[in-house]
């Protein structure tokens, strides 16, 4: 049985581990060690990292159903916020480095290209999640409402994986694996809900 304390203790290490790639890529970008097309590379790495972290937050919820891992849920907020951090970096790379703040072009791009539309909506949905992540906000909103808001993570995950799926030109294996994991996790939640013992009645 892992206690809440065990998981809380692992937080500083996890924090550094998850933060580290962004620092490394920033360093490699600045020193010109990110390959031949560094802006593309940076954007791809940041986006992939964000998607993986989103999937990990979904996994944490599922894992917390297993008795000995019940307390793992204390890690979810940090990882969720890191997902938001990587999405923000991904999006600002697109806006600033890729398109040099050419807002007219960017707006057209978001409207016209389905894969960018998916990614953008996914990003928008993440904003309420990140901004209601504090204990104080949970108290102010009430747990029920807060939980409802946080169901947004499902469209976020689906849209983010579609964003990746449509982007890939030919070999869709990797995005399909991510979509598969997301679908399995969602099915598990639906199954759990349907078989939940009824308390009242």
């Amino acid at each position: 049985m892992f206690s809440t304390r065990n998981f809380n203790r692992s937080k500083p290490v996890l924090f550094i581990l998850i933060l580290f790639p962004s620092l490394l890529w920033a360093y490699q970008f600045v020193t010109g060690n990110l390959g031949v097309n560094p802006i593309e590379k940076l954007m791809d790495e940041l986006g992939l990292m964000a998607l993986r972290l989103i999937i990990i937050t979904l996994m944490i919820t599922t894992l917390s159903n297993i008795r000995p891992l019940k307390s793992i849920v204390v890690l979810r907020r940090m990882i969720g916020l890191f997902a938001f951090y990587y999405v923000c970096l991904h999006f600002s790379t697109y806006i600033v480095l890729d398109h040099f703040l050419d807002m007219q072009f960017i707006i057209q791009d978001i409207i016209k290209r389905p894969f960018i539309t998916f990614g953008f909506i996914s990003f928008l949905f993440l904003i309420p999640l990140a901004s209601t992540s504090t204990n104080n906000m949970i108290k102010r909103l009430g747990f029920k409402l807060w939980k409802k808001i946080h169901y947004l993570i499902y469209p976020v995950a689906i849209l983010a994986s579609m964003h990746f799926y449509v982007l890939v030109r030919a070999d869709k294996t990797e995005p399909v694996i991510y979509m598969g994991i997301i679908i399995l996790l969602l099915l598990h939640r639906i199954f759990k809900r349907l078989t939940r013992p009824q308390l009242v009645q």
Partner: protein
Amino acid sequence: MKILGSEITPYKTYLNRRKFIKGSLASAMLATVTSSAFANHDSDLSIYTKNLNENDKLNSYEEITTYNNFYEFGTHKKHPHLNSGNFKPRPWTIKIDGLVKKPQTFDLEKILSNVTIEDRVYRLRCVEAWSMVIPWQGFQLSELIKMAEPLSSAKYVQFVTVFRPEEMPGQQKRTIIWPYREGLRMDEAMNPLTILATGLYGHEMPNQNGAPIRLVVPWKYGFKSIKSIVEIRFLDTQPETSWETLAPWEYGFYANVNPNVNHPRWSQGTERRIGEFKRRETLMFNGYEEQVAHLYKDLDLTKFY
């Protein structure tokens, strides 16, 4: 249009230069196996740079050979460079068939001894909205077509890439339908800009760039410039091409570089020149409008993209 200008190198001189470069490259490799080994692959760059347009700069050998779309070696840009080591580009033959006087198989060496190898510095624009400037060595496709003696009924030319899954690990997976196929209309194939390239930066075509012989059609998106060609077929109907078969709503048969016709995935209005920070405007027909626009004067380019 300076970029069209080409330096004619007799095949013998070309071979000698190639030998010299191979020698110096090998010794450099012994010293250190890093990208710097390629830094002095050719002592005299002026052969190429004098053919450049004002706004263009040659991409480095390293850029051209480590960032490739060649799905036969894997779908990632670095895969062709990493996975093409076992590919054997010699000996090589090209089968000529379809609507020709006499179907036959040419030995590559025989073809090369009958053509003039030239330097051609061309812009390459990928459909993914990045571009490079590459100094190719090759000969006009029209020269090979003359050797092939097509019938007057031949209206199209189809090209087929080699299929060797044991040497090309990407072919072990069905990402696209192998072998890769491409095609041109006869007048596009005969255009003096269209070349079969056998080298770049003065040495033999690297495996990851389509050894030993590939097409270069500089006014079309890069995927039209099919690599490692083993068969050329002359047809009276428009041939199927790999990307068009896979996603016809995204890739057309013509695939002319056109900033005004958008692609669902990439805006084609701008591009990132590899090595540059800011995007630049994409030019109509990749800047070769003067040489090729007449080929399409009766064609609705938004329909035939």
